[in-house]
């Protein structure tokens, strides 16, 4: 017991005496929630530059709506389309030659070229570029005198709790920080100790190996709670986020996630004594899940077969069900499946890891 407490206390001290770790583990997720939450909160006013290639100086065309927009704009610099609810887009027209326009497109200065030829308008853009496509539709609607440009449109902005981007984001960030903290804290930490020969020095005492690993888990779990608490606290006050489901269900998923990632961390750290290799290994585990597991955007755009696999990734499991507790109000019974699966993963990975573990 004494060694268990000592080991935990050393783990904590190693953590908080490293200012860099505190930034990445505590401040970074909060900053990310804050930044992304703000960025996606309101469709702000956009500015789009359009390269205008015209065969006449006046930019007059057969389209009356176009002519009016151009007339209304000050010194022919551009015009604004949209409305307060949707967000307004300000289009800036830049009069250039065709060659210059193509250059601008290549450099990404603009995403669309409008060509005026024989008094008619031609739109040139990449149809796979959603932003250009959106601009095209918006412009086209305006030129046809459609409703989208006016304030009389019939959609209602969803700003209810639980449907905002921040509601989607925060549970994911929480799970991601658990993954990061386990993978870097435990996995990289153990590899580092092995490379320093500290691991073999410790094992050459009556220290109990399972106590040693249990202390790693408990210390990480404690730190994880602290990190999660601070993130939730911030988001509660700043974005008015709360846990709509059962707190116990959330805790269960959280602990199971920690078990899964501790197991994976032990497995990842089982052989190498090279911190550079360790760095790579940790990234190999962390990177795909960060991208695929639907932390920042939904993974449902992937093909169906891929979704089936992605859904089983530990980070996806943890994030999806944490989200369902936060947003959909899931209870304990709803989270039994991921809790069991995550725990089994953790136990299986650590069991295999320990079989091949290189203590010396």
């Amino acid at each position, binding site marked *: 017991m004494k060694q268990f407490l*000592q*080991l935990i206390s050393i783990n904590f001290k*190693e953590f908080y005496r490293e200012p860099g770790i505190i930034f990445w583990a505590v401040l970074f997720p909060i900053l990310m929630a804050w930044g992304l939450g703000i960025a996606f909160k309101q469709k702000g006013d956009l500015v789009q530059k359009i390269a205008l290639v015209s065969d006449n100086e006046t930019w007059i065309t057969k389209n009356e709506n176009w002519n009016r927009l151009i007339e209304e704009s000050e010194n022919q610099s551009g015009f604004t389309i949209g409305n307060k609810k949707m967000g307004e887009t300000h289009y800036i027209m830049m009069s250039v030659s065709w060659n210059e326009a193509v250059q601008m497109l290549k450099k990404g200065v603009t995403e669309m070229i409008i060509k005026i030829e024989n008094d008619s308008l031609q739109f040139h853009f990449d149809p796979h570029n959603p932003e250009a496509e959106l601009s095209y539709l918006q412009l086209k609607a305006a030129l046809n005198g459609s409703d989208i440009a006016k304030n009389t449109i019939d959609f209602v902005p969803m700003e209810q709790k639980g449907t905002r981007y921040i509601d989607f984001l925060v549970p994911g960030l929480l799970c991601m920080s658990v993954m990061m903290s386990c993978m870097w804290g435990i996995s990289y930490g153990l590899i580092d100790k092995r490379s320093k020969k*500290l691991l*073999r*020095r410790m094992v*050459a*005492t*009556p220290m109990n190996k399972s106590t040693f690993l249990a202390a790693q888990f408990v210390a990480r779990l404690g730190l994880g709670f602290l990190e999660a608490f601070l993130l939730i606290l911030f988001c509660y006050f700043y974005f008015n986020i709360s846990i709509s489901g059962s707190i116990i269900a959330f805790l269960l998923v959280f602990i199971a996630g920690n078990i899964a990632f501790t197991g994976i961390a032990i497995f990842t750290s089982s052989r190498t004594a090279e911190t550079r290799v360790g760095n790579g290994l940790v990234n190999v585990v962390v990177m795909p899940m960060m991208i695929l597991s639907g932390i920042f955007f939904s993974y449902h755009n992937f093909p169906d077969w891929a979704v089936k696999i992605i859904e089983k990734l530990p980070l996806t499991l943890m994030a999806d069900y944490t989200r369902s507790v936060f947003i959909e109000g899931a209870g304990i019974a709803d989270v039994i499946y991921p809790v069991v699966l995550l725990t089994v993963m953790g136990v299986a990975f650590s069991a295999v890891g320990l079989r091949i573990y290189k203590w010396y």
Partner: protein
Amino acid sequence: MDSKTAMIEVREVRKYFKHVKAVDGIDLTIKKGEFIALLGPNGAGKTTLVEMIEGIQKPDHGEIFIDNKTWKKNEKELHQLVGLSLQETRFFEKISVLETLRLFASFYNLDDQRIDEVLKLINLEEKKDAWVVNLSGGQRQRLALGIAILNKPEVLLLDEPTTGLDPTARREVWDILKKLKKELNTTLILTTHYMEEASYLCERIIIMDSGKILAQGTLKELLSKHIKGEVIMFSTQEKFDEKHLPSREKVHNVMIEPNQTEVEILVEDLVSYLPEFLNKFQSEGINLTSLECRKMTLDDLFINMTGKHLNA
């Protein structure tokens, strides 16, 4: 072999790596309370041998007993019995000396009183709250020694405990070890590159190279058994070739430095050889720029046996 007094027994132990025979058939019996020095150049196999005794590496062949126990069957007891320091361990960086000692003490279930004793013994009381990163190399070595002796081990295995220490600090370590011997009758194996350390601390010196024991015994025994003869050191103006030496059969060993003008030779009987040597040089017109004769030391013996200097 008297198993009652034998504390450590190493039998026909071998450990081969891909391209090296790191330890190549070693037999060794160490009595309780005996202090042993393992002496050898870099790559001799000292660390590999010691780590096998520590249970950290497994021998490819042969057996090792400590207090009649083996690592395979009695790991727990042996961990309690053995204290060790590795050739290079970097402890937790941002953890203080005291916290490090506390952690290791908790593995042995020791109380704070023992920690204070050890702090005093390794002379790090003033540094007890300093982080390990901020310690000097010598202070870190002393911390490693402190951890090795925390549980008052019956068997102490130290791999180069004084490498990198200044002479005063080295003396301090020696005093600590002498004290342990007197008070606790500790059995010690230590590896070192310092002849002086080996002869000051240890009853028995074992000279190793290429995984084999070349010679062993007390300093006196080694000197009387292996050292017959004297060393002539000289340097010449021109590049020197071995063929200029007279009566080659009387010369045991020739060492020519890479610059080919500084030479050391080992002869059995200086009184009869020196006149012959000088005559030959005079008649061949070889100009000596310096000449010195001395008795052979353990270092010369070492060079003679291994072809390498001790601290290369």
